[in-house]
C-alpha cells in the first residue's frame, strides 16, 4: 500500500455513530458495514488531507503504548476499506 496516498471516504454513505463505534450504510449498493472503535477512529481521520503515513504517525503520538500494532492495524483497515470500495485515494 502506498502510504503517501491521501485516503478519503466516499460520499455515498449514511453514518451512524453509536458510542465509539460506527455503522455505515452504503446508499448505492445498500450494504451495511460495522466499524469497531479502532476502525471508526481511522475512518474519522480520513479527510483527504492526511496521508496514511500521517495517520499512523498521529495515532502513534496519541497512543505510544500501542505503537507496535498501530501501523499494521491502519494498513489492514485501509485494505478492508479498499476491498469494500468505501474509500478513494486522492
Amino acid at each position, binding site marked *: 500500500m502506498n502510504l503517501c496516498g491521501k485516503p478519503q471516504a466516499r460520499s455515498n454513505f*449514511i453514518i451512524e455513530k453509536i*458510542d465509539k463505534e460506527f455503522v455505515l*450504510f452504503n446508499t448505492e449498493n445498500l450494504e*451495511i458495514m*460495522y466499524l469497531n472503535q479502532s476502525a471508526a477512529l481511522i475512518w474519522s481521520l480520513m479527510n483527504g488531507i492526511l496521508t496514511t503515513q500521517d495517520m499512523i504517525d498521529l495515532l502513534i503520538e496519541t497512543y505510544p503504548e500501542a505503537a507496535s500494532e498501530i501501523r499494521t492495524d491502519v494498513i489492514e483497515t485501509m485494505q478492508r476499506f479498499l476491498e469494500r470500495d468505501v474509500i478513494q485515494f486522492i
Partner: protein
Amino acid sequence: MSSLCTREVVFAGSRAVIECDGLIARRICDFIIPPDADRGNETTQSSVSFFLSANNSGNFSLFQNDELIWKGTDSGYLAEKFLSQLCWYFADRCNNGLLFHAGAVQYQENCILIPGKCGSGKTTLISWLVKQMGCKYLTDELVFFPFGKKVVQSFHRPLHLKKASLPVIQPFLDVDRIEEKYHISCQFSDLIAVPGNYSGESQIRKDTLKVILFPQYQYDSSVQWSSLTAAETSFHLMQNLVNARNLEGYGFSETTRLMNKVQGYLFTYSSFNQIYENILRVIHTEKKHT
C-alpha cells in the same frame, strides 16, 4: 358453519380484506386470522383484497385484488401461499415505521425480538422459548415499530415451521398442527401450527423491548455466543429491515435509535441444551445501555 366468511386485518399501515368461499377455505381463514383476532383500528394508507375459494372437487384458488395468483389441490399450500402473500403485501406498502423480519416473544413484562433471515431458526427458537422458557408468543414473522408511537405491533399469525426443523423441535412441539386440528393437508407444504401459549396481544409498549437475539442454527456445531455492542446490534438488525426502500434515509437512523436501551446477542448453536443457561440469563436482563 357457513362456508362464507369475510375477515379484515390491519397491520403496519395497511388493511387486508379476506373473503372465503368453501368450507376448507373458511377453515384456513379461521386458522390464519382467527375470528377473535385483534384486527387493529389504525388509519391505513393502502388496502388489498384476497379471495380464497374451495370447491367440492378439491380444487383451490387464491385471488389477490381479483387476480388469480394460485390454483391447485393442496390445501396446506393454499394456506402457506395466502400467508406469504399477506406478509409480502404488508412489507411492500409499509412506509410509516420500521418493519422488521423478526419474531417476538414476551417474557413477563419484557419483549424479546428475534430477527433473522429465512432458515436462521427463528421459529424453532420461538417454539422452544414458548414451550420451555414460559414465554408468550407474539409473532414469528413481522414486527412493526410505527414512527412517533410508543408501541410495537406484532403480526399475529400461526407459527410457520419448516419440515426440516421438526427433528429439532419435535421434543418441544406443543402445538395444534393444522393437519390435526383443521384437517388441512400439508403434504407438499411446510407445517403451520399454533403455539400453546399465545400472548393474545398484538401491541406492546416499545420500552419493554430489552433484548434482541440473533440466532443461527447450524447442524452439529458447537455453541458460539457473543454479546453485541449497540453498533453491532444495529448492524445486524438493519439487515432485517424489510421496508428500508420505502423510508427516508432507508430507516437507518431510526433503526440505530432503537438501540438505546437494548442488548443484542448473536449465537450459533445446534441444540437447545447449549444455549439454555445463556438464554435464562438474558431473558432476565434489564437495561444495559444508558
